């Protein structure tokens, strides 16, 4: 039951984009088209889930016994950066189209604060291994959801009659803000 609570909490209530405001850069950067948003979503899901598992192991098996928990941030960034690099190699080999479409945003997952945020919060919340992975998976699904929703809105916005001054990024930010307010309606859920 706790796992389900964690999942719902990270996807809807404490959505990392809409409630914690992490990962705004890729959120606005790749949400112009549904296709790239989906690709980015999958990449982030893979990275966060894997990073949650690996960082949990590193924190509890290596850092805590040696009493060097303060290296957490440094080591986690190292893990995330390597993972992203690995995924970049993988996607480049398997799907050149996706590789070109994601362009600069793929290496940018390295500095996507959602990834670091999730892994560090997992440790702070004192989750067990399974809970940590669930929380990571939920967080990435939440990010995925936010990306897909906004990209859908932005594709429709292309055709809408937007006032001259608000065209482009301003109207996207306004839409994102409205979605964030809508998501605050979930706050009593868990």
């Amino acid at each position: 039951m706790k796992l389900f609570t964690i999942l719902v909490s990270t996807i809807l209530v404490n959505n990392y984009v809409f409630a914690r405001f992490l990962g705004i850069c890729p959120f606005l950067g790749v949400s112009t088209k549904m296709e790239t948003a989906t690709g980015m979503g999958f990449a982030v899901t893979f990275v966060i889930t894997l990073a949650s598992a690996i960082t949990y192991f590193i924190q509890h098996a290596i850092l805590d016994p040696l009493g060097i928990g303060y290296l957490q941030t440094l080591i986690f960034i190292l893990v995330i950066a390597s993972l992203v690099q690995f995924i970049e190699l993988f996607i480049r080999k398997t799907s050149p189209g996706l590789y070109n479409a994601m362009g600069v945003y793929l290496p940018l997952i390295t500095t996507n604060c959602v990834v670091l945020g999730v892994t560090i919060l997992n440790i702070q919340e004192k989750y067990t291994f399974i809970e940590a992975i669930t929380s990571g998976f939920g967080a990435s699904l939440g990010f995925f959801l936010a990306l897909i929703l906004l990209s859908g809105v932005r594709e429709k916005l292309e055709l809408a009659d937007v006032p001259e001054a608000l065209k482009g990024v301003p109207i996207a930010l306004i839409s994102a803000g409205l979605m964030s307010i809508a998501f605050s309606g979930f706050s009593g859920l868990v």
Partner: protein
Amino acid sequence: MEAILYPVTVLGGFGLLFGILLSIASNVFKVEVDPKIEEVLEALPGANCGACGFPGCAGLATAIAEGKAPVNACPIGGQKVADQVAEIMGVSAGAVDKKVAVVLCQGSCDKAKDKFVYEGVEDCRYETELADGAKACSYGCLGCGTCYDVCQFDAIRMVDGVAVIDKEKCTACMKCIDVCPKGIIELVPYDNEYVVKCKSEDKGKEVRANCSIGCIGCRLCVRNCPSDAFTFENNLAKINYDKCTNCGICEEKCPTKAIWTSADKEEKAAS
């Protein structure tokens, strides 16, 4: 001791481990790139000057290999590089219209007068800000060597307070042209031996008062040119390089020697 040893080993160990894993992965997931890109990149000068309009030599190599840029797109490599690249791409290069930069001023210290003594920062861009520089002629070379500083190919020398560009070393990368605050450096065709080395649009009397080697607008060159290659506007003679036949009559006629020739100097150097 442990307080230092543990973090260092752990961090170093992780770095090493991930490094090895990534290098293995990069071999496993190796992507075959067009070998032509690397071959073209080898042939290019590798100066990454950006004069071709692409982001560095690698950008140009990719564009050439994909057929998006002509094989002679590298302006600094000239005919030699174009031929090599053409051979790699399997097409003929065609003739490269080689150009070189020329400083259009000969007002050295003994020939051009100064308005005041400038003792500020040794940079033409700063000097220009101060009453258009110390030279009496507001069009002339200030001689601080800003172009000399940006030239990557050692083609510019400062001689008697005027920049002189070595025709053989110049690669027409346009760095000096961009940086010159006076706008007196221009590209001229390499094969062209005669240049009006003056940019002054002042009236003849003023030019004469300021500088002994400026164009005074007498139009002798315009009248005497057999191939009608001169245009005259704003008190300044200009050579139309397409029409010029390198006959040298203009240089002989020019009373102030504002028309300069590269051929003459080479002969002098040879003898």
